């Protein structure tokens, strides 16, 4: 059959996947449409709830890139600090890394026999 990719322990077919997504999706939409009917458009239910605080304007509420995943990088500070320090941008370090790695691999290949 078209699109059947053998992976050794199973198979993958994008076409079957799409058909399945369509079928399951339509079932979900069907169930969803049968559900809660107390929702009404353009009432208070549409407005965001920020613990009673007034909503900020759209322009000032855009989150810029440096704030995204702030907590992630803060939690992994011990990992990130040395890693960023490693990327010095100094050309001497670039060539040193190549030479150090070359020596290590030479030793590994030489010793392994």
């Amino acid at each position: 059959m078209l699109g059947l990719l053998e992976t050794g322990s199973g198979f993958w077919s994008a076409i079957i996947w799409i058909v399945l997504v369509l079928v399951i999706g339509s079932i979900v939409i069907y169930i969803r449409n049968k559900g809660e009917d107390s929702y009404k458009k353009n009432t208070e239910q549409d407005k965001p709830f920020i613990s009673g605080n007034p909503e900020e304007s759209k322009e000032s509420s855009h989150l810029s890139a440096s704030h995204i995943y702030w907590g992630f990088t803060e939690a992994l500070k011990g990992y990130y600090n040395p890693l960023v320090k490693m990327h010095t941008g100094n050309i001497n370090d670039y060539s040193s890394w190549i030479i150090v790695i070359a020596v290590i691999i030479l030793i590994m290949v030489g010793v392994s026999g």
Partner: protein
Amino acid sequence: MNLSNHIPILIIAIPLLAAFLVPLIGRINKEATGILATLALSVSLILTIALAVKILTVGPQVYVFGATSPSLTLPSGLKFPVRIMFQIDAMGIFMGLITAVVSFVGAIYSLMFMKQNSGLDKYYSLLLLLTVGVFGMEFTGDIFNFFVFLEIASIASVALISFRGIDLGEPAEAGFKYMVVSSISALVVLFAIGIFYGQYDLLNFAALASVIKYSQLDKIALGLLIPVLAMKAGAVPMHMWTPDAYSEAPAPITMMLVAASQASLYALFRVVFSLYNISLNALTVGWIIIIFGLLSMFIGVTMAIIQKDIKRLMAYHAVSQTGYMFLGVGVGLAVLANPEALKDYGITAMEGGIFHIMNHAMYKGLLFLTAGALFFRSGTRDLNKMGGLAHYMKYTTIFFIIGAAAIAGLPPFNGFASKLLIYESVYKFNPLLSIVAMVVSILTLASFVKVFHSAFLGPKLPQFKEVKEVPRSMVFAMAVLSCIIIFFGLFPDLIVKNLVHPAVMSLIEQLQYTGTVLGGM
């Protein structure tokens, strides 16, 4: 004269001729330079496809320069070939197809993208030379010629990286760093060539492969070739040039640089599989490559998450994705001496790794082009300053979503197919490696969500009022890559069966490679 015998050389010679004609044409008409380059690369693309069909149906092709017949490898009873030759098997043409597509798309994209710059004749001349260098690295059957093409590619790419260095400092800095590291690598390759030549008096890949003994000197040559070729491919911890060079080059050139570094990756696989094959200690070398892969995947993606420059972020992802290729092929190499494991999961792992090369070139090329489109209209690469661009650039947004979904390995795009092959086969080798690969995939998705949110989503910003969709030729270039990604995603089995599997087999079976040149299987 039968032109179909001369396709291998015409693929390279036509861009080369165009590269030399472009400066002359540029004296008469500036606009014509880009059109000439695009024409030459489109001819090259058509010829590459024709050659691919020929190789996959008939078998590997050789082309001997200056001989009385293109396939005459051993004239007058010689035991070993003396002439320079091209030797193209399924793996070579697989890489050649990537280069042809990427360079053609890059030339189309450059038509409008570079229009404002001066010195366009030099730009197109260098773009064509870079293409020639990358093609040559993939097609050549001669180890010294490989060095020459490597240098051609790196000189052309340095000149292109620092192309905007007239007005800005950073491109010149990136060019300097790339030049120094790539000359080190090229000189080390030349030193290894010297070791081979001193031992065997041979420069031909196939002839060398048939006599190589894995002596102490061969080990030194291998130990020198692995790190420098891995460095050119951007393996951690020698990847520092990658984000510098990729972020400062013009967007179409960045796409070509991805193809160029993959040519170095190809050379690494060629050296390990075709030159040494089972004569080397497959487990050690395999694990070296796997460790390169692990480090590249993980450090690449974690560094990408914290970047603020959109092209630098994508460049770190290029490092991270190269790790998948190292992982897949490394697992294949580690079990090379073990036929049962090779048949069980080794070949599948290599198929995943090799298929990922092509997928990566396509979706990473597309992502760099969308980043270039954002830069073209908004004038900034800083994610902090962007926002709400989806309101103005609808096509670019769609292309970005396709590319980001593909790189994060979301079904049904092509990245998922190759990653699935890698996960399932590597799991049988060592479950831990597979788990790391999946975690990296999740982090990839996370960082592209960040890019999507900060560049495309959000309210309309006042400073981008003038922004509109990019010109039609740039949209066309991105659409070509998107169509390829979707096609590969929907029918991965066609590609794996017809293109990737022959490529993997031509890597694994050394005798097939040497037999094409030396005759007699």
